[in-house]
Every structure is written in structure tokens, then in C-alpha cells.
């Protein structure tokens, strides 16, 4: 499975276009991390817990998208985009989408 943000994969031709695939996950922060983040709001600086949390969630979203692409018989996803939105206070949705294609 090739994942790329480009519109083509160099050296390969697209033989079949299979449409949009997407993956999303909604994550809430847990209370301990939230407390630490509250403290960090006084001192400033990086919130490592959140960075990791969001990174993991994004991998989860990518995995879901990849599964969807595999189930429709694609072997590459082109032009991948990410998007983040906060749904409620304390939870955010991580969304990723791309075009599933068959490459040769």
C-alpha cells in the first residue's frame, strides 16, 4: 500500500480509479493529561502527552483509511489530506481522506 500526498506516483501508471476513501477517529483527553495541560497553561511549552495522543489517533485514522482502501482492492492512496476539528470541549476528531487507486 502506497500512501502519498502527491497526485501521482512517479514511475507508475494509474490503471483504475476507485474513489474517495476516508478514516476518522474521535479522541478525548484523559483527566490526568488534562490536569497536566492545565499546569502547562501557566508555564507554557510543549504538551508532550497531547502530541503523542494526537499522533496515535492520526495513525489510527490512517489505518482505518488503509483498511477501507484494501477492502475495495486498491494498492495506493493518492493526494492524502488531514483535517482536525474539535467536536466538544475535550474531544477532537481527526479525519483523513484520499483517493484510492490501482497502480501498475
Amino acid at each position, binding site marked *: 500500500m502506497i500512501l502519498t*500526498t502527491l497526485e501521482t506516483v512517479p514511475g507508475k501508471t494509474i490503471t483504475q480509479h476507485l474513489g474517495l476513501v476516508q478514516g476518522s477517529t474521535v479522541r478525548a483527553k484523559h483527566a490526568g493529561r488534562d490536569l497536566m495541560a492545565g499546569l502547562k497553561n501557566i508555564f507554557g511549552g510543549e504538551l508532550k502527552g497531547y502530541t503523542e495522543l494526537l499522533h496515535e489517533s*492520526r495513525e489510527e485514522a490512517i489505518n482505518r483509511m488503509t483498511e477501507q482502501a484494501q477492502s475495495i482492492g486498491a494498492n495506493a492512496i493518492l493526494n492524502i489530506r488531514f483535517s482536525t476539528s474539535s467536536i466538544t470541549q475535550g474531544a477532537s476528531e481527526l479525519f483523513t481522506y484520499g483517493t484510492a487507486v490501482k497502480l501498475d
Partner: protein
Amino acid sequence: MFDLILFLILLALGFGFGQYLENQHYKSIIRRESSLKRIPAIATKHLPPEFTPCSTQMVCGNVVISIDFFKKFVAGMRSIVGGRVSSYESLIDRARREAILRMKEQAATLDANYVFNVKMETSSISKGRRNSIGSVEVLAYGTAISKKQAL
């Protein structure tokens, strides 16, 4: 009275630690930026044709950075008179540069020469009182290109 003292202590802590952490962060950003100069991040979608025998891999880097109490206070004051909010500018600048650096670091482990079609995504993670920005997340992502030697 107690509230006022607490507020002043928080302000002083925010000023002291915030400035220190920001300076340290900027130092580390500048150091790593110069060591990763060999991997340019390019926002173009299309690869030049001479690149064609190459391998591609998606890379991304993210960071969440929080504002300190002093800067938040200054930004609050600034919103009364209007104008440039330089305390938020430096926060977001740090976050963007850090995210790009992390993306490039990931590209460096893959022996990439370039990162093409770099996109950025910014979102505020926790909102404080009256919708003030507490912390921002920046995600930078792109496609790492490693040019193979012509056979």
C-alpha cells in the same frame, strides 16, 4: 486580596518560565534547522520529470504547544486596543517550525532528499475561558522523495 496575590504569582511564573522555555525552544529550533537544511521542504504538487526513478513515502510531524499565563494576559490586554498580538505570533511560529522539523527528521531517517507537497494544518486544542486560545496543534505532512542512483 488572596486572589490578587495568586494572580501576580502566576503572572511572574508565566513570565519567567515562559520566556526561558521559549528561548530554549528557539535555540533548539535554529540548531536543528541548520542541520536539516539538506532536506528542502517544497510545496509543489508535481515532481520534475528527472526525478522519476525514486521512492516515495508519506511523512508527518505534529506538535502541541501551550501558551503561558503571562502571554495570555498580554494577549487579553491587546484585544482591548487591537493590533498585532505578538505573543500568539511567536507561539504559532514555534509550533509550525517544530512540526516541519519533526517531519524532516522522519524524512531524514528514510534517507530522503526532498519533501514534496508539504501541507500544514493548525487547530486549537483546548480553549480557555471566553474562547481564548490555550494550546495549538500544528501538523505538517508531505511526501518524502529519495532519488535512487541511475542504473
